């Protein structure tokens, strides 16, 4: 069967598979579509009135949208938490699930792009950022770098996933010479997307809270511990609802790596806090606002301590083998890690970086209803992309969805 025709059949079969499912599937997709509808309605209001419907103002000019963007770049980067042991250390139990990590990365990246789109004041001018057609300020602007690396990473993951699934669908061997270099390339790419995102914050001398050398390492460490959390929960669900076989070993190994990276994250956080409080310069105001409040403004304080508390608890739960290997505590640890890093990237990074503002003013920012609804809508989009891709990928991986049923499954068929 020639490739373009085969690909067309693959695409058609995938689409067919997406629109059919059991009741739970329809309910879940329906719920996501509802979220997306709510988010869209809120966004239309934002388009009409302008960003004034958010609570961002000149004094705090980035907020919930960029916080979510930053967190999700980390989640996207974390896909390589599976790639490294699978391909670099050639660890078989994880190999079969790396594709799921890449699907997660794609969904997260779609959400990242959506969050950027809803945050800019002139989305109709989005084309200005395209190289050649627009005017991309590369290499001077870190945002220009971010646009490039995020899109390369997205394309990379999308290509690898599609190629591997297509090969599985047609029961063909995938060409290792194509896949392996790309997958290995995705490791420095993943590091680069989160480093570049970190650089766009820490390159700003105007914001001393961000202008710290360890911001990029902190980003990477917190990404690698939080990203896989969603995946671990997902893998357990998939094991239950489909006949996908995932070894316990794989899940526990990932959880263990998460524990170490969370420990490192906590250490880096402590290092930052120590430097600020011990040297006690004027720059301390930002750290103080976050952990103890300033001039009676205590809005962020509970979040800061909750984040570190959850992180510490998760670290212990995932470090100690007894709690790591028990499903209840493992899942609790995953939830805690996710919460800890989510709070830290939003409340704990964006807001203290901008409060007090460069002229010393404290404007207490909390997201508006529009921002919450739009964000919910975008998470709906991301989860929908994730769901639909899995709806196709899992059956293909299991050999249930294929163009050549009955043909034996070859040994290295699994990506």
């Amino acid at each position, binding site marked *: 069967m020639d490739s373009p025709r085969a690909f067309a059949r693959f695409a058609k079969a995938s689409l067919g598979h997406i629109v059919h499912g059991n009741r739970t599937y329809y309910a879940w997709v329906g719920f996501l579509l509802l979220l997306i509808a709510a988010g869209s309605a809120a966004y239309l*209001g934002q388009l009409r009135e*302008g960003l004034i419907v958010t609570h961002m103002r000149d004094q705090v000019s980035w907020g919930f949208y960029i916080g979510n963007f930053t967190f999700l770049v980390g989640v996207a980067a974390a896909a390589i938490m599976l790639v490294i042991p699978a391909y670099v250390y050639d660890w078989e139990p994880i190999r079969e699930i790396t594709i799921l990590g890449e699907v997660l990365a794609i969904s997260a990246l779609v959400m990242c792009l959506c969050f950027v789109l809803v945050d800019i004041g002139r989305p109709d001018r989005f084309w200005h950022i395209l190289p050649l057609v627009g005017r991309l300020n590369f290499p001077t602007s870190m945002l220009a770098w971010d646009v490039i690396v995020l899109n390369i990473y997205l394309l990379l993951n999308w290509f690898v996933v599609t190629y591997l699934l297509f090969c599985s669908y047609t029961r063909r061997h995938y060409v290792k010479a194509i896949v392996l270099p790309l997958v290995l390339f995705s490791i420095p790419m993943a590091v680069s997307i989160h480093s570049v995102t970190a650089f766009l914050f820490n390159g700003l001398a105007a914001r001393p809270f961000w202008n710290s050398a360890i911001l990029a390492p902190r980003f990477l460490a917190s990404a690698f511990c939080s990203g896989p959390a969603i995946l671990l929960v997902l893998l357990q669900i998939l094991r239950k609802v489909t006949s996908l076989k995932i070894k316990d070993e794989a899940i526990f190994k990932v959880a263990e790596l998460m524990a170490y990276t969370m420990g490192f994250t906590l250490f880096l956080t402590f290092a930052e806090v120590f430097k600020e409080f011990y040297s006690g310069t004027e720059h301390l105001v930002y750290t103080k606002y976050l952990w103890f409040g300033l001039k009676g403004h205590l809005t962020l304080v509970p979040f800061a301590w909750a984040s570190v508390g959850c992180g510490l608890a998760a670290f212990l739960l995932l470090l100690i083998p007894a709690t790591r290997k028990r499903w209840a505590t493992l899942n609790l640890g995953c939830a805690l890690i996710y919460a800890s890093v989510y709070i830290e990237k939003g409340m704990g990074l964006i807001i203290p970086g901008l409060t007090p503002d460069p002229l010393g003013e404290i*404007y207490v920012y909390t997201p*508006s209803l529009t921002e919450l609804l739009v964000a919910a809508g975008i998470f709906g989009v991301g989860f929908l992309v994730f769901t639909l891709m899995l709806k196709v990928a899992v059956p293909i991986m299991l050999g249930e969805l294929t163009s050549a049923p009955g043909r034996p499954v070859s040994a290295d068929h699994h990506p």
Partner: protein
Amino acid sequence: MATPSFSMPSRRGLGLLCCLLGAMSGLRAQDIQVPPPPFTEGLFPCTVCHDGKNLKVNRQRRELKDMHGDIVLKHGPESRWCLDCHDPLDRDRLHLASGEQIEFTVSYELCGQCHGEKLRDWRAGVHGKRTGSWNGQKQYLLCVNCHNPHSPHFQPLKPMPPPVRPDAIQARKGGAL
């Protein structure tokens, strides 16, 4: 009699300066465009009363009671009084420390005798308000246009309203959520 008033000249007023340039006598070499001295209505020329015949010159330092009692002197009153600046022999003029008489239109020469640094800065355009073109003609003000010579301390002003706080900035109509 009303005290001399010291209000800011309007921009239209400043525009009339050019005409005064040639007409003014006793200008120093600097050729500095300034508005006319802010005399009170009906007070100048002083020689109407101080003609040297009916009112005799009294050089005694004292507190004035019969006339000009409304002038509050807050300009180094321990060491300075009226005739240190106003010329005793010609009240339509001021006099420098040397005794040399000068017109009111160049009163800055007198101020500058004690406030030399201010005069130097003023000539450079760095002290006090100066309007015009950064690459062309400029309009100065006399010291006395901003500083009441009898009580020179710059008077406080009522501030204009503060900016709107960020939480008070809202979407105008019903808008979105």
